[in-house]
């Protein structure tokens, strides 16, 4: 499986994702520049963490209009797999590819630490190496990760099993402790925690491996 990692001006987790995919999982990976209009045969697009376009106006608001995003939207609408991590999640909500929005953390503080997550849906392409109820320890690093969705939308999201990950120690005030959601057709995932920062024991947790193992089809550890 070939991974394409979008690089916006201000992305800062692009190399972390590249490293894990290429060097930990031995999969082909390529950077995709935000001004390009070609996904170069990518099977799965990652929108990485960072502060794309300085997060001016709103987090992800400007990034969603970069040339590469036209291709990402087209790819996603045809069923192509897209993952937004942290700032990438914000870009996906701004682009309307995922429901909801990410508000400033309720604490008004930037939060940077490991959090505990519970896997709520292990039937998705992004979580199939996990099991429902499994706990993961993965770091977050964000100032605007406070997921919000209107009450009707939230009911639908929960009812359809679109909440994939939930915080056990909510770091940002996110509604229903939501940490990661998937779209209705199951090919677009957004999450605030950073699995790419927790895929090797030297980093203090390798629980992020489950995420990549789900994607590359390998068996669990």
């Amino acid at each position: 499986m070939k991974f394409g990692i979008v690089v916006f001006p201000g992305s800062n987790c692009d190399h972390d994702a590249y490293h894990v995919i290429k060097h930990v999982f031995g999969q082909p990976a390529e950077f995709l520049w935000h001004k390009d209009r070609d996904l170069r045969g990518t099977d799965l697009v990652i929108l990485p963490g960072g502060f794309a376009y300085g997060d001016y106006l709103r987090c992800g608001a400007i990034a969603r209009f970069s040339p590469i995003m036209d291709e990402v939207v087209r790819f996603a609408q045809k069923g192509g797999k897209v993952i937004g991590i942290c700032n990438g999640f914000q870009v996906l909500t701004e682009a309307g590819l995922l429901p909801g929005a990410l508000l400033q953390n309720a604490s008004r503080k930037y939060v940077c630490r490991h959090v505990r997550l519970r896997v709520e849906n292990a039937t998705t392409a992004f979580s199939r190496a996990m099991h429902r109820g499994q706990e993961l320890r993965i770091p977050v690093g964000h100032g605007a990760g406070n997921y919000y969705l209107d009450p009707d939308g939230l009911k639908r999201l929960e009812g359809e099993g679109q909440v994939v990950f939930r915080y056990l120690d909510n770091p940002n005030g996110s509604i229903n402790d939501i940490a990661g959601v998937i779209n209705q057709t199951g090919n677009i995932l957004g999450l605030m925690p950073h699995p790419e920062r927790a895929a090797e024991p030297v980093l203090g947790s390798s629980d992020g491996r489950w995420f990549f193992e789900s994607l590359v089809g390998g068996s669990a550890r």
Partner: protein
Amino acid sequence: MVARVYVTLKPGVLDPAGKAVEQSLHSLGFPEVGEFRLGKYMEFMVAGKDPAAAKSRVEEMCRKLLANTVIENYRVEVE
């Protein structure tokens, strides 16, 4: 023509920054302040002569970029 855009958070959407300002006002001796909401004000020039047409263009800008209608309302004035 001048366009003025007011972007405000929808009712019920958490406003941590607004809350902080409200608390500061309270501690500065303005206890009468309540329900404080922090929004955005934008002002820019728009070419053309027809204010009604310009207004509908600016509203389109709001829906596409200036506001996130999942969490924000907007109001446009053109003159």
